[in-house]
């Protein structure tokens, strides 16, 4: 049995429906118009407090962190065959929590495979393990960085030697101002020590990894490096 189509019986305009006060060409009844207006007003009012609140929560994802340079000592402090640990501040204003260890040594042409430029007269290696972010320490006797959590091991250049880490240890840009070594923003490296915008631990950047784990607006490598 075919279902009767109600819509055909319905008058098209308010004049056809003989609604009091109807005028020529009016297709939306005033009741419908009022209902829609009230719902729209309610929707706008809800959006007016929800959207700014969500913006507040998601804002930091799109906000660029300020670029910071921090002095770590005179250039003669750092040999070119081993690392000197220094403490730098990653997040200011929160005390010990915002600090991190960075391992610094002079660039060594015989040892280093990273392309030499103005930002790596000194090599500053982050102590953040590239497996899941635990702090690694440099063991001089074996010339290895070792992570206590899940057994990640890196060689003297920070390249993965063993264990679960997915890429070499991050580095920081360095520069020398008036004989003082300064440590700047962080950058990440693929297994050939090519520079990438910083990625979080656990995110490989070789091959498809660099697209599967895109760089973020909140932190980028320095332009042109």
């Amino acid at each position, binding site marked *: 049995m075919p279902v009767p189509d109600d819509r055909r019986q319905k008058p098209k305009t308010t004049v056809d429906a003989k609604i009091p006060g109807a005028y020529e060409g009016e297709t939306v009844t005033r009741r419908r118009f009022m209902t829609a207006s009230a719902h729209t007003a309610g929707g706008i009012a809800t959006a007016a407090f929800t959207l700014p609140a969500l913006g507040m929560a998601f804002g930091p994802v799109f906000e660029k962190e300020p670029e910071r340079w921090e002095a770590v000592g005179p250039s003669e402090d750092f040999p070119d065959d081993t690392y000197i640990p220094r403490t730098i501040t990653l997040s200011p204003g929160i005390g010990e929590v*915002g600090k991190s260890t960075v391992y610094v040594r002079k660039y060594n042409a015989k040892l280093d495979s990273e392309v030499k430029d103005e930002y790596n007269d000194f090599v500053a290696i982050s102590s953040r393990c590239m497996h*899941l972010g635990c702090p690694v320490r440099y063991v001089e006797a074996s010339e290895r960085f070792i992570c206590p959590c899940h057994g990640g091991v890196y060689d003297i250049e920070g390249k993965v030697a063993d264990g679960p880490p997915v890429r070499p240890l991050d580095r920081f840009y360095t520069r020398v101002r008036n004989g003082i070594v300064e440590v700047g923003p962080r950058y990440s490296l693929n297994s050939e020590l090519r520079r990438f915008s910083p990625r979080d631990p656990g995110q490989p950047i070789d091959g498809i990894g660099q697209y599967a*784990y895109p760089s*973020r607006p909140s932190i980028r490598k320095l332009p042109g490096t």
Partner: protein
Amino acid sequence: MAKLPTTSGPRSRRERVETDETPAMAPERNKLQESGVATIDWLDERTSLSAGARWMMFRRIPKGTNWFYTLGSATMFAFLSQTVTGVFLAMYYDPSATRAYESVRYLTNEVFLGEFVRGMHKWGSTVMVILIFLHMARTFFFGAYKYPRELNWVIGVVLLILTLMMSFTGYLLPFDQRSFWATTVGVAINGTGPLVGPYLSDFMRAGPEFGATTLARFYAIHMLLLPGIIAAMIGAHLYLVARLGTTAPPWIRAESDPELREDSK
């Protein structure tokens, strides 16, 4: 003004009870009872709450219902315990990176019963996760997720995820070495999701590094956002339980209507 008609059933039953009273105590007890009854009636006349309570509590349940069916309620009571202890822990807790650890130390060592209430919250969280999994296993093995209860299974899974999010955000709050590094690792694990992972990590930390507002963000999610959603979801879960009823255990065979049995012969 005309009074609303009162329901007759329970009213008449209460009046019957009043008849067998010892004469000496009768007036005082009557008065006391009358005032209680009057209060309930006043509320009920305006809200019909008793009908809702009867609908929720006096349900027909299938033959074979056993102790396994209490796991859901047990999970809900674990949540209630977390809510109550959490509200009072919040009176002493300070979600600032420089003062959080000290405030937790103070509430644990100095506040009267502070260690006990914090212990309830800490161990209660583990209990809740265990109970929610047992409840899920009961539902699964009894086949209670099948038609028409699929939506309730889905809501239950959402509640499970929300509970695990509570565990994750709560773990950071004591702000000792263990909770800081566990959260660092946890956020990194979140970041390993392709495409969205990196942005999700930035959202959780409020930036590329663990910063000044990260702890406050975890605290707000832990004590305001998630409990609200969980409470609402529990409401929906319970409504569907009451509306659809519970299932019999799989070992109970359905009894067919004797009349129908005769028909089939």
